[in-house]
């Protein structure tokens, strides 16, 4: 538990050292430069095992093949008796003080340990969540930038279609213009030709009409003359 608080304060002193370094390492792994330890290995879940708070588990593992489970305890008892009997450890007033302090410390740890551990865990969680949030925001904004860039590239491709449409438009205009002029030409030519035909018709009809008129006139004259002659 105390280790967790040490870690919290040490990390705060190192300006979120391990976490910050982890973030930097993780973002560096996005580039393709050769980096060792990319991404950064996560912190181990639990520390090395320690029995009764002060004796590392390795001692027990060391003695287990030869002496079984009770080996280290027998070793401890024998050692203690030797120290006491040879007075390598002297029993004096400090022994009493140490015993009292030891009892208080052990009682405090047993009673408040889990709560302090939960508190330290919560602080760590908050730090991790904040860093994760920053990373997520950065990733989201970068992903959005990528999507927008892709859209811009797609739009640039679309400009080709735009140019084609404009070219088609211009071709259409030219074509209509050309056809208009062709129609104009044909109409004008047709008008002139019709005029000539009408002229010819008129001339022919006029001739025919005048001859017909002459004939009717002559017939009328002849009739009148005949009528006069008989009268």
């Amino acid at each position, binding site marked *: 538990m105390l*280790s967790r608080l040490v*870690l919290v304060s040490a990390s705060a002193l190192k300006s979120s050292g391990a976490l910050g370094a982890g973030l930097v390492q993780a973002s560096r792994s996005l580039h393709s430069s050769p980096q060792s330890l990319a991404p950064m290995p996560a912190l181990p*879940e639990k*520390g090395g095992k320690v029995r009764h*708070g002060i004796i590392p588990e390795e001692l027990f593992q060391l003695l287990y093949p030869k002496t079984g489970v009770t080996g280290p305890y027998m070793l401890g008892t024998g050692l203690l008796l030797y120290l006491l009997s040879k007075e390598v450890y002297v*029993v004096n007033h400090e022994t009493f003080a140490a015993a009292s302090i030891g009892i208080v410390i052990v009682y405090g740890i047993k009673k408040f340990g889990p709560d302090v551990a939960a508190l330290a865990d919560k602080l760590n969680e908050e730090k991790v969540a904040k860093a994760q949030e920053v990373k997520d925001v950065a990733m989201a904004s970068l992903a959005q930038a990528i999507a927008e860039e892709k859209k811009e590239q797609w739009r640039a491709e679309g400009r080709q279609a735009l140019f084609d449409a404009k070219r088609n438009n211009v071709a259409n205009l030219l074509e209509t213009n050309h056809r208009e002029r062709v129609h104009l030409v044909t109409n004008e030519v047709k008008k002139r030709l019709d005029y000539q035909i009408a002229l010819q018709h008129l001339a022919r009809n006029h001739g025919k009409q005048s001859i017909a008129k002459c004939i009717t006139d002559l017939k009328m004259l002849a009739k009148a003359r005949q009528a006069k002659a008989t009268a």
Partner: protein
Amino acid sequence: MADKPVPIAEKRLMDVKLGELTSWATTKDFSPNGIIAAIRRGHDRYYNKYINVKKGGIGGVAMLLTGYVLLSYVWEYDHIKHDRWRKYH
């Protein structure tokens, strides 16, 4: 199995045979820089094993304090000798 022969200087302490112990010790760097580097290595090993973990326990700090208590007793023994109950053991 005979492994490829490793030069003595690179072996770890537990792999050194008893006969090679002195020659191994002479290859070690005892300059001030070397000593500081060794202290840093030891500190990093202890720190990364017991303290720099997600759920550390009391052991990491408690072992340091216990070591401090024992070391201070050893340094004070010449003074504590005079509180002994018996003269001859």
